């Protein structure tokens, strides 16, 4: 994957910016060489097992002298927890994202070494950064879906150290994607963009290190190896060398542009970047603190979801607020008065949703504020798209759908970005539903008994146990979900016991609608009589908007990357 990315990057450098080519080759090859060294000499996936006559065993790809090959009996297969469709795509997507960020970093290094003060490296890097970001997003969302489907705790994100390690480059990468727009438009943030891409690259390597080395306790720690010290050296060298390059060219990288005012679009992008960096610092601290505490106190502290939620919640809120304001600002200068005039209508309309929610669901302040921010961001984005469509319908005498399509295609950078923002709004809706309005209960029921959760009645009607041909002992319950006496669905929460692994995997029963998920986990049962069964039931309002939003986000990102401009190709 990395080889392919580097090859494509070099090809692009050769075609578009020959001055960069040697340095892009060098940076890409050094990165590639590092990973190949690890694969060849430290963690070789192709190594075989060799034994000597006196019983000593070696792992090596080539045959050591005086040994013979051992063929181990069949293994036990893939860890049952990983047998999920999402897991086929999740790791390659994450690694494609990681590999993708190597190319913008290589171009950044090339630009620094060649002493260029222009934005050419950014122009070439933009689709790479967006592509890598898209892959990383798909990887993260698939991981969340896996957690939701398999781990059986009713959630999708546990703030586990390995999850956070994958999120960190996504955060700095998102900041970079926003920041590069400012340099392209206003010739600002030249140094800052180098800082961001260096940080993103280092965090990519850091993320791989955390995932693969096993230095942190994680529910995702499926492997442990001795690659830690090598990664540590590589991250340190890369960071120091990149920083030294940046400092060497510091004076050259003077931003020519000016920021219009506090309320201009470039200022809003600055605030956006500051918030993303704050999130990055929080996540980095959360991941590293267990190691720091172990070094200084001997106790490896746990930094759990509650700490992350407390600290990151307001920052995510700030980002949503910016999403609601930025489309109303302009490049160059917007005065407070002008911004206020544009804002008052969407703000007024957006207040309807939190007020209604307060009446219907009570005063859950966190949820109410979050819903207001979501509504504001959605309204402003939709208003901006609607405005463009109406303008086009009038000017070009086009029908609604044709105008809508052309608005998105003709200015795919901007409206692809808006589509990503709409996806983020939907994701935020799902997050708010779970974080602020989730209810749950755990009860033990006999056949025919029912439990009540919110307005839903769940009746336990039966329990089956059977053996499958692939070595699973399955226990499957039958539950009927009804509301106001009307049967809504019959679900089958399940527990699969894998004999070879001696491990159980839950398969929750779900009733999914756009409004909510009823998520039922089979916790325990009487093995012989199967008469009493314990269920954990979660009511997750709005959760499915999380998954829909993720799809919209990816589509938006693909649109923003776009295809090569046909007119440009023809003219050239």
């Amino acid at each position, binding site marked *: 994957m990395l080889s392919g990315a580097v090859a494509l990057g070099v090809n692009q450098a050769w075609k578009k910016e020959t001055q960069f080519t040697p340095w892009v080759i060098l940076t890409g090859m050094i990165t590639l060489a590092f990973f190949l060294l690890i694969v060849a000499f430290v963690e070789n996936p192709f190594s075989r097992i060799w034994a000597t006559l006196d019983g000593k065993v070696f792992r090596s790809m080539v045959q050591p002298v005086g040994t013979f090959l051992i063929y181990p009996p069949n293994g036990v297969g893939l860890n049952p927890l990983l047998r999920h469709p999402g897991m086929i795509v999740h790791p390659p997507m994450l690694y494609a994202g990681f590999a993708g960020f190597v190319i913008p970093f290589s171009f950044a290094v090339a630009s620094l070494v060649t002493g260029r003060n222009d934005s050419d490296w950014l122009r070439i890097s933009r689709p790479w950064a967006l592509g890598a970001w898209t892959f990383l997003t798909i990887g993260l969302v698939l991981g969340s879906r896996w957690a939701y489907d398999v781990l*059986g*705790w009713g959630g999708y994100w*546990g703030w*586990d*150290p390995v999850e956070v390690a994958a999120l960190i480059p996504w955060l700095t990468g998102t900041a970079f994607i926003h920041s590069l*727009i400012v340099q392209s*438009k206003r010739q*600002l943030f030249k140094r800052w963009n180098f800082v961001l891409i260096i940080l993103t690259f280092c965090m990519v390597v850091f993320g791989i290190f955390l995932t693969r080395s096993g230095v942190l*306790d*994680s*529910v995702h720690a499926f492997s442990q190896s001795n690659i830690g010290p090598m990664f540590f050296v590589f991250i340190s060298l890369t960071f120091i060398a990149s920083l030294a390059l940046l400092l060497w060219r510091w004076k050259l990288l003077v931003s020519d*542009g*000016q*920021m*219009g*005012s*506090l309320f201009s679009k470039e*200022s809003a992008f*600055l*605030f956006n970047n*500051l918030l993303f*960096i*704050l999130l990055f*610092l*929080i996540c980095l*601290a*959360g991941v590293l*603190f267990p190691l*720091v*505490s172990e070094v*200084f*106190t001997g*106790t490896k*502290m*746990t*930094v*759990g*979801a*509650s*700490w992350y939620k*407390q*600290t990151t919640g307001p920052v995510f809120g700030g980002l949503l607020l910016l999403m609601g304001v930025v*489309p109303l600002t*302009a490049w*160059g*200068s*917007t*005065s407070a008065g002008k911004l206020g005039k544009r804002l008052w209508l969407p703000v007024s309309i957006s207040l309807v949703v939190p007020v209604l929610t307060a009446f219907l669901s009570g005063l859950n302040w966190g949820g109410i504020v979050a819903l207001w921010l979501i509504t504001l961001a959605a309204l402003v984005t939709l208003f901006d798209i609607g405005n463009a469509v109406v303008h086009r319908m009038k000017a070009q005498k086009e029908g609604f759908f044709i105008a809508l399509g052309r608005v998105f295609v003709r*200015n795919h*950078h*901007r409206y692809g970005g*808006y589509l990503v923002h709409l996806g983020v709004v939907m994701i935020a809706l799902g997050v708010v539903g779970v974080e602020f309005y989730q209810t*749950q*209960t*755990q*009860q*033990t029921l006999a056949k025919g008994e029912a439990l009540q959760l919110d307005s839903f009645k769940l009746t336990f009607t039966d329990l089956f146990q059977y053996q499958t041909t692939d070595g699973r002992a399955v226990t499957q319950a039958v539950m009927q979900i009804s509301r106001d006496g009307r049967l809504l669905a019959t679900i089958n929460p399940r527990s699969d016991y894998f004999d070879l692994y001696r491990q*159980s995997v839950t398969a929750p029963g779900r009733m999914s609608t756009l409004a909510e998920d009823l998520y039922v986990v089979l916790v325990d049962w009487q093995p012989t009589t199967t008469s009493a069964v*314990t269920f*954990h039931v979660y009511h997750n309002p709005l959760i499915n908007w999380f998954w829909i939003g993720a799809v919209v986000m990816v589509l938006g990102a693909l649109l923003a990357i776009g295809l090569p401009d046909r007119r440009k190709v023809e003219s050239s």
Partner: protein
Amino acid sequence: MIRRAFRHGIWSHQGSHFGLLAGWMLLLVLAARVQAQTPQAVTDDDINRIASQLYCPVCQNVTLDVCPTLACDNWRAAIRSKLEAGWSDQAIQDYFVTQFGARVIGTPPKTGLNWLLYAVAPVGALGLALAGFLVLRKKTGSQVETKDSTEVSLNGSEPWREQLARDIRKDDSI
């Protein structure tokens, strides 16, 4: 007075109403005391409320409420027995911290080195706010007059000005 009571007979027919009432009152008070001392039935939800705040001491970053191991089953049973014995949530959490160390709670206590963790967000926010302020002051300070982007001269000879003008003519891009 006592003698009079005896003479009229507190235990006499006339006084028996008062005695009966007093007896019932006493029974009621006793019943109320017994009820108060009888532990409330502990539900799975009560256990999960506490278990979700505690991390399994021997597993990989899993809270006790969703941990599937036998050890966690036993710890959940321990929580149940302590709740039945009338322990408060905090007392149970403290018990687990004493037994297994502070790593069993997901939110590190605000003591000693842990303050570092709690300082990150406010200190980071202040530092970044200061950085933002400095950038804004530097980058907006030298402008004598602020103009809307549409008012930027399109006749600039520098390449970036021409590029900017082209971009503005095309459309704003977020």
